[in-house]
């Protein structure tokens, strides 16, 4: 369980030394095994929040606890980073080694594992993301989606409990996005990993158990995708794209209130209309 208590993060702008409040009194508890999506416009603080989960950033005020360990506790830094893995946006800028398998081995190597165990973890992790056939390939020869899956394997090889995805699909084509989302969901359902997906794609947020919507460093909405997306006006105000079918449902709901406002799939809409 990750517990975020009244987290505030203030940083100084380099150019003007002006103070910016990136996070403002955020409280959130992430349960084990949960798939949670964090939505928001650029600069809403969602990436800053993500970086607090594995002590890449430390709170200015408030606390972040990973399995009851405070992230500000320097002695536990490496345990926390091993427990909370992180996949970043740009697939190119997070692959370190010249071959796929060496890259996946990077985390375990840093943890000082035995080479035999590393080999085993690397093979397992590559198998899990479906990249085993590419283990001797050079990263720059892979597609965006494949690179991102290698990055995920690199995290899995460290056996984390939580994986934070910081806009992992923002730079990918639709095919790559699908690959990454499928992998993410499989890890959550089959491997029981807790997933935090920072995104601005609605269709990704729909797949989560819970959705957090952020604006100006604050949480403005929190609930199941159904609960959150039915608040069409709020999402529109924040310039987030509401899934078209939900928007249609909201419009119809205003006219004919027998159509529910929280419809999220085309099938549900068909059922509602044909009733």
């Amino acid at each position: 369980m990750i517990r975020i208590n009244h987290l505030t993060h203030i940083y100084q702008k380099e150019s003007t030394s002006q103070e910016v409040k990136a996070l403002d009194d955020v409280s959130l508890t992430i349960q084990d095994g949960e798939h949670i999506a964090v939505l928001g416009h650029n600069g809403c603080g969602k990436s800053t929040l993500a970086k607090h989960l594995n002590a890449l950033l430390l709170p200015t005020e408030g606390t972040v606890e990973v399995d009851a360990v405070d992230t500000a506790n320097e002695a536990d830094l490496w345990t926390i980073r091993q427990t909370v893995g992180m996949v970043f946006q740009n697939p190119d800028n997070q692959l370190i080694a010249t071959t796929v398998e060496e890259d996946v081995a990077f985390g375990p190597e840093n943890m000082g594992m035995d080479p035999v165990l590393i080999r085993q973890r690397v093979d397992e992790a590559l198998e899990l993301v479906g990249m085993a056939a590419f283990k001797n390939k050079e990263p720059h020869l892979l597609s965006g989606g494949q690179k991102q899956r290698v990055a995920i394997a690199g995290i899995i090889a460290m056996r984390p409990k939580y994986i934070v995805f910081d806009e992992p699909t923002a730079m990918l084509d639709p095919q790559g996005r699908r690959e990454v989302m499928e992998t993410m969901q499989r890890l959550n359902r089959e491997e029981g990993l807790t997933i935090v997906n920072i995104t601005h794609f609605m269709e990704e947020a729909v797949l989560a158990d819970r959705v957090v919507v952020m604006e100006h460093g604050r949480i403005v909405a929190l609930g199941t995708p159904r609960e959150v997306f039915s608040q069409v006006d709020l999402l529109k105000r924040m310039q987030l794209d509401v899934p078209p079918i939900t928007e249609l449902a909201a419009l119809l709901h205003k006219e004919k209130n027998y159509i529910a406002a929280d419809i999220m799939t085309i099938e549900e809409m068909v059922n509602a209309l044909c009733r």
Partner: protein
Amino acid sequence: MLGDITIGQYYPGDSVLHKLDPRTKILAILVYMVSLFIVNNFYGLLGMMAISILVVAVSKVPVKYFFRGLKMIIFIVLLTVALQMFMTPGDVVWQWSFLKITKEGIKQAVFMGTRLVLLISITSILTLTTTPIALTDGIERLLKPFQRFGVPAHELAMMMSIALRFIPTLVEETDKIMKAQAARGASFDTGNLIEKVKALVPLLVPLFLSAFQRADELAIAMEARCYHGGTNRTRLKALQYTGKDLAAGILCICMVAAAIISRTVS
């Protein structure tokens, strides 16, 4: 425009030389260099040449491929030979105004020229039979004992391997920027030298900016994966000496011994 570039000049193969531990190969080359300068007569030099030819043969690298690497240094060799030939004082064999060739000069020139060619050929055999990453690993392990004297062995190796990893990425990016600039009317291959250099500025500025950005993100990604320098770090593929390396070592010792003996004999 920039096409496929290969880093280093590794020639894939499965010869004995390819299978040797990179540390053995690096050390063997150092030993060869030393022997090359111990040797001081023509028989010794012929012997060293024979060893070189043998090594090239064993490596199974096609001779054509091998000579391509040698072409680059032909100018340096000629310059060295000329300098030695004309500048060494001694018995004058031939003279034309201030230029004179001496007996000693000819001997020196032949020696230095041969040494240089042999030196380059043996080192190119190293890079031809060893992948850049294996070379990096080998250097890291060899420098490790010097770490306590402040040699940043791990950091050097990490830098080299990250450079190797990012060269293709940056080449790709250069290509992209060039096309973007060309689409807006920039031209990279017309005009005189100064104009060409000037044309590179709008290419280099965005390239550097993005490289810094990448470095920043990479550092964060590395930290997130528990990177904290070389201490307590293990490797997936630990280097391991085998019987082949022992044999190579023995051969190297024999080579130095033979070199020393050849010196005393003359």
